[in-house]
């Protein structure tokens, strides 16, 4: 695949206001969507959208980050930055999918989990950690598609998939390029430089073995031709689901996959430094 855009351009495309989001994919790719709200503990977070739907005649649980389409929606969804309530709702939906034997499809598009006072008071760290634990135990397949921004732990909390796919111009990283530049170089204006060294593009991540495949986008980006984008994602999901059906033990499969991430870079040089 030819590199059409620089990493910094991809970051801009991944954040483009017109880029299709979770709600758009659900509307275009699924039928009979029934939205499930609330974490059954204390709240409802619109920053994560989830429910049950039919995917080519088969019931699935679908969950994703929701950024919102206009300012009013943006505010309600907190620009796709979930609170603990959102992650706990996702856990509830995943456990239910497990109970009823439904595969889970997630759409990842978040700048990150919300760094706010209330989010901390309600245990943002615990909520993400628990989501990872819940995903470790699922006996149904989970397919994650990074559609826009895969921002840090807030993205990973929906993305421990048996299959993890990325759109051609999506990004996935440990931190935003701005945050990365600010932490390592104390200068957030060097974000373009950070984009180059962070290896956050789909192409880099495929090479590192973090993701399983790339879904090609229309030349100008997903927002330029949403209909073509929906077709490509639909085809990729059908293929991924067919492959996932052949996995006899999805939990063991995920374990093996995530247990070895980064292992290629491990070494044991001198035993001791004395």
């Amino acid at each position, binding site marked *: 695949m030819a590199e059409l855009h620089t990493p910094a351009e991809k970051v801009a495309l991944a954040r483009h206001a017109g880029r299709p989001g979770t709600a758009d994919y659900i509307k275009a790719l699924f039928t009979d969507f029934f939205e499930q709200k609330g974490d059954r503990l204390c709240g409802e977070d619109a920053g994560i959208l989830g429910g049950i739907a039919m995917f080519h005649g088969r019931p699935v649980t679908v969950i994703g980050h929701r950024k919102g389409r206009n300012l009013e929606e943006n505010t309600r969804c907190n620009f796709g930055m979930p609170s603990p309530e959102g992650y706990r709702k996702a856990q509830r939906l995943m456990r239910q999918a497990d109970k009823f034997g439904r595969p889970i499809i997630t759409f990842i598009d978040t700048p990150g989990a919300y760094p706010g006072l209330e989010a901390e008071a309600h245990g*943002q*760290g615990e909520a*993400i*950690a628990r989501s990872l634990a819940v995903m*470790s*135990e699922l006996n149904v397949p989970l397919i994650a598609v990074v559609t826009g921004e895969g921002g840090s732990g807030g993205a990973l909390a929906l993305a421990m998939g048996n299959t993890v796919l990325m759109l051609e111009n999506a990004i996935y990283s440990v931190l935003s390029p701005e*945050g990365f530049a600010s932490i390592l170089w104390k200068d957030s204006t060097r974000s373009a430089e950070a984009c180059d060294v962070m290896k956050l593009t789909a192409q880099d991540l495929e090479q590192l073995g973090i993701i399983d495949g790339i879904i090609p986008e229309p030349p100008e980006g997903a927002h330029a031709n949403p209909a073509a984008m929906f077709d490509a994602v639909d085809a990729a999901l059908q293929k991924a689901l067919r492959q996932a059906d052949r996995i006899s033990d999805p939990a063991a499969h*995920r374990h093996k996959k995530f247990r070895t991430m980064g292992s290629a870079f491990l070494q044991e040089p001198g035993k001791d430094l004395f």
Partner: protein
Amino acid sequence: MLNERFSDRRQRLLRLKVMREGGRLPSSSRIDAPAIFEQCPACGEAVSKRQWADQLYVCPHCGHHRPIGAYQRLALTLDSGTFQELNDGMCASNPLDFDGYDDKLEGLRRRTGLSEAVVTAKGRIGGWPAVVAVMDGRFLMGSMGVAVGEKVALAADTARKAKLPLVIFCASGGARMQEGILSLMQMAKTAEAITRFQQAGGLYIACLTHPTTGGVTASFASLGDITLAEPKALIGFAGPRVIEQTIGQKLPEGFQRSEYLEEHGFMDAVVPRGQMKSTLMQLLRLHAKGGARRG
């Protein structure tokens, strides 16, 4: 006889490692003149070096808990002569070819005697065998990269296979930026390994120390069957500065401290350093099968 010699050697090795990191064990500081003072970073009172060591680096005036090195923590937690380090040389290369990272790691290894930001070991706590992992904030803020994630996961695997309880002392700035997305994936790896260990019936006690933030809080640090913390440790997902910038207001006093988490339902108990070992012993006793010592 042979056992005693091994036990002696283990204790001497641990003492050397503690000295290497500049720490001192209680009443082992005969070489220190009592008149060398170090100010408490919290209250500013002068405290002699010997007193710091005898008080386990807790200020006798204000109770401030100073961070301590991983080997020092192990020496305070494990019974004398029972320390057996696991995977001690394990480290990671520079996966993203990040400029200057190799040199930084090399310098830190020389300076601290640590090969990475976590030390994992087998040992006994008041006679109870356990696997213990201790993070060390001096090594790139205790950040989690591939090696830290692997060592924590291996500690959980070891505990699962040997049917031993697992104790992790957390201290971390979060994911290691220099290893990028691979650091993020260590959150999945560690959470997964801990979950498997717990599914197999294992007891995991998380002891959170100052500071525990970011990707470590959002993975294994928050998954303890029992969660303890040292007093006034900063514990959170986002750092206080990021939150202040986001919400545009000052944070309340005590926000994200151990006591705040206890109040909000995320902590079983805040335990001062001097009572940590006895608390761990109590918990291990309460979880012993049939009340008998295992191992």
